């Protein structure tokens, strides 16, 4: 390492304490972080994509059974949860905006509200899981889905084994989504801590931005999960 570079870096560090040594300038570091997050989200899309692929194929094969199983989930809870997540996405955007214009109180407030909404989401989700557990709709040894009519065919019962596939996919998809929510909450707790310590400035708030990207992505996944899982065949 030549002296000139070391000096150059020290020079930079005085201005941008968050600038990592291997970046030439803050803009480069920001762009790298944001591109990195987008590519990570691309990975996530394909991760959920495999599940969506399985879901679509079985929904097509066992449409009636999936409809019956879907109808047994509480769509009002699902819709409420969608609204909760959408509100949390709004507060995330507000947090990013607040960071940009250095409104520290708004930033901290938005982060807190986001986390609260995330917890509300998980609470409602827990209620749903509890209902399913009590109804014996959790796949496994005690699963039972006998004599449930197929929507539109009141004299025909859904095949429990096909309904079980629906519930397996339901729990895996919503479970992985919930896991992403929990990770998101952890991420936001850290962001809140950083914001509390006043680490974010209009020049440096990349963590808020990429944390926000993550949160919005989790929201988008849910935007698709809601109609696909809850609203297959609702009409009476």
């Amino acid at each position: 390492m030549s002296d000139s570079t070391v000096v150059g870096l020290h020079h930079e560090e005085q201005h941008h304490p968050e600038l990592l040594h291997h970046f030439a300038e803050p803009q480069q570091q920001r762009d790298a972080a944001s591109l990195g997050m987008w590519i990570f989200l691309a990975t996530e899309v394909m991760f959920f994509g495999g599940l969506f692929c399985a879901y679509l194929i079985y929904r097509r094969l066992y449409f009636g059974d999936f409809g019956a199983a879907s109808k047994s989930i509480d769509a009002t809870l699902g819709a409420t949860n969608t609204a909760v997540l959408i509100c949390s996405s709004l507060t995330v955007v507000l947090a990013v905006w607040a960071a940009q214009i250095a409104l520290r109180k708004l930033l901290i407030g938005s982060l807190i509200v986001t986390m609260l909404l995330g917890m509300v989401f998980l609470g409602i989700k827990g209620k749903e899981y509890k209902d399913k557990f009590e109804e014996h709709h959790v796949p496994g040894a005690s699963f039972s889905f006998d004599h449930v009519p197929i929507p539109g065919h009141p004299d025909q019962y859904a095949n429990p084994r096909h309904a079980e596939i629906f519930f397996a996919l339901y729990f895996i998809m919503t479970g992985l989504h919930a896991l992403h929510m929990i990770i998101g909450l952890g991420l936001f707790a850290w962001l809140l801590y950083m914001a509390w310590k006043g680490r974010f400035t209009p020049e440096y708030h990349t963590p808020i931005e990429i944390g926000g990207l993550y949160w919005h992505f989790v929201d988008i996944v849910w935007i698709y999960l809601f109609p696909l899982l809850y609203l297959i065949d609702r009409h009476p």
Partner: protein
Amino acid sequence: MYFSVWAALLLGTFITYKVAYLDLGRFNAAVALTIATIKALLVALFFMHIKGAHEKLLKLVVVSTLFFLFILLVLSMADYGTRTWS
């Protein structure tokens, strides 16, 4: 602006929820997925700032990811959609 997007998203959710109880035949799924896609677009474009991003690269990342997802779904269907048995 953020608030109008937010309002549109809530409205979309409400419409999806209500429309699901109407009997539209096979259009139920189409409507639900269309609204979901519009909502996802709104979130991506405005909340995730794809619109107004200063370079095309991010758009390229998004589009190519969706392209490969599309490949996964469509080419699987090339098998499932053309089987003569269930």
